[in-house]
């Protein structure tokens, strides 16, 4: 395995790990807002690291560029959508968790 392959594999694994962390977060966190926080980890870091790992080994610049574009779209959309979802939840009266144990 070449160093580049190793680096790429490392990025891919790291990305997958963040995806797992995000999923666990969505499953375990106590309220809507915390779960949103977990979701953004997948959007930003999980997908980001996977994209970087793939871009390192991509055959052409165009491919790498398209991969980064995918990530960029997800980043922008994630920034807006999380804000929107959180606001909607707040307006509907979901009270943020104050550090108590989940009932």
């Amino acid at each position: 395995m070449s160093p580049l392959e190793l680096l790429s594999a490392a990025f891919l694994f790291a990305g997958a790990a963040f995806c797992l962390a995000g999923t666990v977060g969505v499953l375990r966190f106590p309220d809507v807002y915390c779960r949103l926080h977990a979701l953004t980890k997948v959007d930003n870091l999980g997908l980001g690291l996977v994209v970087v790992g793939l871009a390192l080994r991509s055959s052409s610049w165009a491919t790498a560029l398209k991969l980064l574009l995918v990530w960029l779209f997800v980043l922008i959309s994630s920034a807006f959508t999380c804000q929107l979802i959180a606001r909607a939840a707040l307006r509907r009266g979901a009270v943020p968790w104050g550090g108590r144990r989940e009932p």
Partner: protein
Amino acid sequence: MDGLLDGCLALCLPLLAYLVLRTESLSQAVVLFVAFGLLSALGWARLEAPDIALVEAAVGTGLTGALLMHTLSWTEETPPDVRARARRRPWALLAMAALTLLLGWAVLALPADSPGLGLEVDARREDSGVKHPVTAVLLNFRGYDTLLEIAVLLVAALGARAVNPRSERASSEAAKDPLTGELFRMMTPALLLVAGYLVWVGDHGPGGAFQAGAILAGGGVVAILTSRMGTPRMSSLRVRWALLTGPLLFIGVAVAPLFSGGRLLEFPEKYAGTLIFIVEMALTVTIAMVLLMFFPGTRPPRTGRGSAR
């Protein structure tokens, strides 16, 4: 690893479908259905059908998702038939299993190595004027199906607008929301770019009018939701021209050979590629309009939620 991935995906799809239909809350069913659309897109991807995955992505996340969210605003949360269904559940499971076995028996009896019509398509693709085989089948070899399919879209748009004719705009408060406004401004150029790219790429790779039209419609849905426009109305002449230029052009291209002794949809070999491209461009607009007409506007019912039997 490939086998594991395929097996897991193939197992999950029916499971998810069962969950969609089994759950008692409608909101749960809708979210599961969105997930089902995503998984089926992955299935298309695994089966090397990127064209279909593109359509699933464009329609599923854009239009169908928004449409289903919209249904949540006017249907009852818990379907009225929960108790009745619970009684019937063992019967339903048995029927599903029996039907699956019967149909599976036929599938197992199919020849396992038939190439279908792949070789024939390959042999004639040169004459079709298009490099991508799926586009060649869709717009040239079986272009007549596509012509009728456009009629299907028009009929559905006409029917959907006929029953909900008024174009409803969201409250002015929604229009002023800076967040969605900024989102729309950032999305628009990207949407136009990707849609144009997909029409262009349809000639030699997966893409084409329907995919591009569906993406434009996705942008249109956001525009409707943020009160930048209303659902297109049949009563507006401009809307009708935008809707019908594509079909008229397609019909014109289809019948033109008849006047010079040719057959319906027989494109002259030299111009086939160009003609198909022009028709695709015009159909993109038509398809985007039709899909937007499917989207029923934004105002939740004034009188509250009624039951939808």
